């Protein structure tokens, strides 16, 4: 099952990783709920948004459970569902999903069969964003297997590349809010409406 990303989802993922270059970061990808189609043609899952979760220590359970439950409730209200999980590891050369990634993704897969893990490839992360820097992992036969990520994984790669690069240069990541920031101060909004607006304005 292929997964596709919109510019907004890709942007916010990279902004999250850029905001905390010295930490591991993770988050969720949400897609619009679709009616079941009778035909057997599989349409790709379009991830329309991403919710940045934590930075630093990713391997502790309680806040992760709170975040998953809260975001699940929010998704139901907005006719979304949680479709994937992304993670950027602390060390540059470390691109493989670890135990945390697999556990969270399995939990997501309980509600959505085609859940995917998206790892950010730190080795090719740059301001210019000239190539997609993701590695997508699907679950087959009890293992997570890497699939090639190319421009087909994006709704519109040209737009995604341009806008992400512009926001990185403009240091928009300084105002990105993740769930950790929200727990520090409840007024911080993890849906990031202002960054969403910046993305739309640049489209």
């Amino acid at each position: 099952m292929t997964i596709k990303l919109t510019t907004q989802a890709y942007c916010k993922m990279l902004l999250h990783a850029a905001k905390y270059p010295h930490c591991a970061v993770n988050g969720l990808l949400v897609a619009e709920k679709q009616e079941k189609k009778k035909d057997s043609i599989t349409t790709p899952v379009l991830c329309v948004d991403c919710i940045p979760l934590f930075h630093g220590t990713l391997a502790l359970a309680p806040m992760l459970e709170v975040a998953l439950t809260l975001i699940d409730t929010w998704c139901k209200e907005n006719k979304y569902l949680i479709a994937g999980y992304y993670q950027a590891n602390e060390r540059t050369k470390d691109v493989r999903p670890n135990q945390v990634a697999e556990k969270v993704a399995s939990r997501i897969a309980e509600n959505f069969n085609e859940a995917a893990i998206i790892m950010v490839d730190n080795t090719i992360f740059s301001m210019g964003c000239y190539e997609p820097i993701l590695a997508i992992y699907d679950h087959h036969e009890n293992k997570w297997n890497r699939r090639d990520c190319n421009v087909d994984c994006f709704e519109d790669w040209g737009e995604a590349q341009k806008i992400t690069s512009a926001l990185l240069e403009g240091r928009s990541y300084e105002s990105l809010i993740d769930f950790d920031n929200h727990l520090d101060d409840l007024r911080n909004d993890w849906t990031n409406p202002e960054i969403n607006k910046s993305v739309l304005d640049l489209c």
Partner: protein
Amino acid sequence: MASVSEMYDVTWEEMRDKLRKWREENHRNSEQIVDVGEELINEHASKLGDDVWIIYEQVMIAALDCSRDDLAWTCLQELKKQFPGSQRVKRLGGMRLEALEKYEDAGKQYDSILQEDPTNTAARKRKISILKAQGKNSDAIGELNEYLELFVGDQEAWHELSDLYINEHNYGKAAFCLEELMMSNPHNHLYCEQYAEVKYTQGGLENLELSRKYFAQALKLNNRNMRALFGLYMSASHIAASPKVNAAMKKANVKYAAWAANQINRAYQLAGRGTKENKCSVKAVEEMLESMQITMS
């Protein structure tokens, strides 16, 4: 490119004071430090007096974080000129080698510091950081344990060790490190709360109860700690829902969870006042708490 002082309309004294605040509070906002510090050094070095040396050190470390080797090199040269033969400057040289991924050379630099002064804790800790950077977590844990046998009071080291254990999913040992920190800092609500999170992650009824108690303790020390409040709610809910508890315990935990849910709702109401967007998260929290109540009873 506008200067920092122009963009934010600040004087050089305010910039210097900001740098001191970040230094004292150990912030890792390296990009900001580089922006403010570079301008301060380039335009106002003569006015800073003796402060300039500690600012060079702070800016150099921030520059390494931002891959600004040009700036780091300049700062290092100034410090070398002023303090020839200083071990503190030698350690900064080692950090620069680490940033360039020349780990062997950096290791040699630290070894030479340790030869002159075997009690130099900074050099020993940098050697452990090299292991961590290379992904050799078990080696880093081994070395850090040895270090802590000699330098038992080093809180930064205990916290680093607890983080390393958490990343290796060794929650029992991580809890031990946090216990050391709680003993020497009984009023620190963050250690309490992190200990509670580790116990919760370990799982099992006994650990859940301990976790609830420490979340409660963290709240007592700081009643605005949202993580502690959520943690209290989650742990009490899980205990109440467990088939292994007797009726009395279940009743007590349902009460704790209800109290926590109430406090959470109040906190969200308070935060959501006046903003239209936050109203949706207030609603989401209410619904989440309601749905968990259903699974509990």
